[in-house]
């Protein structure tokens, strides 16, 4: 029980690191956004797993249960998810604009192009 009780945090950390790795190691902007999303989801899972009470049930009142999971993290995460999709949409539209301006979504290419433009000026 003791070793297993921290299991959820470890999973969260593995996911978080996977997302983090994708963000910093990948040069492709779309892939970076996917990594960011994975990072976000790991945070969601962490909050939700903190709100879980063993033996409890979903926080909707019923007759045959007295113990409920904690509704507060659920509310926070509910709003966070919707904000997350809004930011994702914004990020993706930025990617499209970058593609139009630079004809590439690879970080290295974009850096090279903008450097060349700076030198030309």
């Amino acid at each position, binding site marked *: 029980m003791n070793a297993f009780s921290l299991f959820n945090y470890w*999973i969260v950390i593995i996911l978080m690191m996977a*997302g983090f790795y994708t963000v910093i190691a990948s040069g492709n902007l779309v892939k970076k956004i996917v990594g960011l999303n994975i990072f976000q989801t790991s945070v*969601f899972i962490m909050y939700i797993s903190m709100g879980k009470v063993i033996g409890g049930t979903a926080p*909707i009142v019923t007759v045959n249960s007295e113990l409920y999971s*904690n509704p507060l993290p*659920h509310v926070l995460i509910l709003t966070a998810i919707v904000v997350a999709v809004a*930011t994702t949409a914004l990020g993706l*539209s*930025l990617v499209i*604009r970058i593609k139009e301006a630079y004809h590439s979504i690879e970080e290295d290419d974009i850096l090279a192009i903008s450097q060349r433009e700076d030198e030309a000026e």
Partner: protein
Amino acid sequence: MLAITAIAVVRFRRLFTVVMLFGIYSLLSAMIFVVLDAVDVAFTEAAVGAGISTVLMLATLVTTGRHEKPPRHHPLLPLAVVTVTGAGLIWGTLDMPGFGNPADPVHHHVADRYVIESPREIGIPNMVTSVLASYRGYDTMGEVIVVFTALMGVLSLIGIRRQRKQSTPPPENSATRRPYPVLQVMAILLIPFIILFALYVQFHGDYGPGGGFQAGVIFAAAIILYTLNFGLDDAMLLAPPKVVLRLSALGVLIYAGTGVVSMLNGGNYLDYNALSHDPLQGQHFGILVIELGVGITVAAVMIAIFFAFAGKTEKQ
């Protein structure tokens, strides 16, 4: 089961696969939320993660090309950074309270009050809805405004393309994209059902899982299905962008207006007790109205964002 998720995520290579795997990943995490009793969250995550974001990412991939270049840097340095950070975090968790223990500090600050008092004070069974809409009404309003702002951002970046006139000939490459009767019939069969289901989720949110966000996303999903099967121009006839944009503003207005009305009735801002003689009825009424506002805004914003992206995939 949690471990499957980790496996699913760490394997990545081609972009298209990445996005598809991301869809699976969202479904899995939504399932985890169900197991962890967070039904409302699972609802939202499935709608948003597996539905909307995947579609948006695909649309982006269409315009940007789907092949990723091999990384030029050596992956060792990021890997080292990640490992060190991860190890540090794991070390940090050793002090965290165990999983599912009812004695955790998380469960004893304000949560007690929400769980015990909310059925009496608000009068609706779904605690998530009551906390979301009533106790934390300000947060939710701010969040609706954030979504609205994101729409503004997307529009200022890429914009919705103009609706084509009926008389103009279709673009020449549409010959390769013949109408597909089977899917169109299925879509026509399903769309009324989806919209009905959205309304059910919208107004049943007090009693079961659901509410404004989820209903808004489902409604947007119906429009997206229509767009995918009948093309963007027909969909724009169905839901003209101008109307959609007005609606997204209207939703925010309904939400904020509810607060003003409750102020005029002598309560605080967003204090629904003032809306009716009976506080409980007032609460119920207030929650219903602001959920409607949230639903309208979210649906309109999602539809508008999708139109913007779909317009980008058709041009050029």
